[in-house]
């Protein structure tokens, strides 16, 4: 198999002024994000008005990774033309069913989700919390994911809502927030991904005078009671991501965060930190949960409402 990605924008043999990019496999892992970073660099320096994405070498694309894929292609798509080769039936089916192609301006109908495994790709304006609430209600309230307890559904919904709110609060982006998910019935696993094209956690901390590497910045955000908020901003923050970490630990799932050049993954009680040679242009949070989990998530200790304040 050829090496992942293409090294530089080159004219294709097809229509004039169209750059060709050979997309490599995109799993929800370090290599998958490395490929998206390569694609981002490619489109950032592309001088052509058109981009042809060649998928002939693609063996696998995790559908939830359509969120960061859509984010990476978003800016180019605003002024250029994107064509994705869809000769492989599996790929075409996935991108139709989750609405990626439809949402991205392709003239294909949105495919029916016959298996109930798709959580639609969608871009949200940063100020549009109502649209995200409607999206969550559409996909996770009522029908939801089969064989997933209501307690787990609720914890999951609250988790992705925390991530969305966090992106709205901290990303500082006008490009919006991108979301997509996929349920894998055989693995009893649900992956949901939220991406933004914001300044990233490292830069948020840098603006507060804290110099950390990109991966240390993620670890900082995920630890203790840390928050970047100042008292002058009037409101505390900083609990959402930690609550998700607690939930995922109990569930046996994982959280993967990519921000700037940092890679942070929490699974099985362990944190894996890595660095990319080049940065991702924003922040991505992928939550993976074990849908077979039947825990109640009801905390044993009783809280006296009179003792809260």
């Amino acid at each position, binding site marked *: 198999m050829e090496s992942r990605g293409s090294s530089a924008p080159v004219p294709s043999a097809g229509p004039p002024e169209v750059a060709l990019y050979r997309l490599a496999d995109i799993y929800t892992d370090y290599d998958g994000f490395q490929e998206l970073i390569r694609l981002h660099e490619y489109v950032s320096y592309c001088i052509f008005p058109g981009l042809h994405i060649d998928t002939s070498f693609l063996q696998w694309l995790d559908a939830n990774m359509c969120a960061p894929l859509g984010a990476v292609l978003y800016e180019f798509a605003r002024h250029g033309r994107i064509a994705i080769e869809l000769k492989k039936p599996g790929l075409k089916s996935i991108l139709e069913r989750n609405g990626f192609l439809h949402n991205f301006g392709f003239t294909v109908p949105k495919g029916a989700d016959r298996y109930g495994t798709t959580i639609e790709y969608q871009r949200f304006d940063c100020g549009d*919390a*109502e649209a*995200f*609430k409607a999206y*969550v*209600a559409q996909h996770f*309230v009522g029908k939801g994911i089969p064989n997933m307890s209501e307690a787990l559904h*609720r914890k999951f*919904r*609250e988790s992705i*809502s*925390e991530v969305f*709110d*966090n992106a*709205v*609060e901290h990303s500082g982006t006008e490009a919006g927030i991108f979301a997509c998910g996929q349920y894998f019935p055989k693995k009893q696993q649900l992956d949901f991904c939220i991406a933004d094209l914001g300044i990233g956690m490292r830069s948020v*901390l840098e603006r*507060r*005078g*804290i*110099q*950390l590497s990109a991966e*240390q910045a993620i*670890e*900082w955000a995920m*630890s*203790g*009671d*840390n*928050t*970047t*908020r*100042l*008292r*002058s901003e*009037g*409101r*505390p*923050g*900083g*609990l*959402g991501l930690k*609550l998700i970490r607690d939930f995922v630990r109990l569930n046996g799932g994982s959280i993967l965060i990519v921000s700037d050049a940092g890679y942070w993954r929490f699974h099985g009680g362990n944190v894996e930190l890595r660095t990319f040679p080049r940065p991702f242009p924003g922040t991505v949070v992928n939550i993976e949960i074990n849908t077979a989990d039947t825990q109640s*998530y*009801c*905390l044993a*200790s*009783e*809280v006296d*409402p*009179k003792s*809260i*304040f």
Partner: protein
Amino acid sequence: MDEQIQLKVVEVVGGGLCVASDDGEKVHALVASALRQGKRVVVSFEGVTDLTSAFLNAAIGQLYGEFSEDYIRAGLSVTGASNDDLHILKRVVDRAKQFFKDPAPFREAAKAVLGADSDC
């Protein structure tokens, strides 16, 4: 504080999904206004299906930036919340108290990530 009002968050938010900071701000505006007028406020979580710390930080947490702990304790109470929701609320409240007492613990926390000898 003689007068008491009950504030149902699902009515303020327009549904049971109490997850967005913006919605929390709506609740906060009403609670803070009532407290400023010297009223006692009972916040009802009846009918809430989803609740996040982001919502509670905005709705309740930031009250500690304006009012004293004693004043809030005397004027604010909650009803209709599940034990899980109370746990989150308790964490948010404890965090808010700490935040407004010590607003910039960032450097110490950063040192913890970098190691004790680091100076960021």
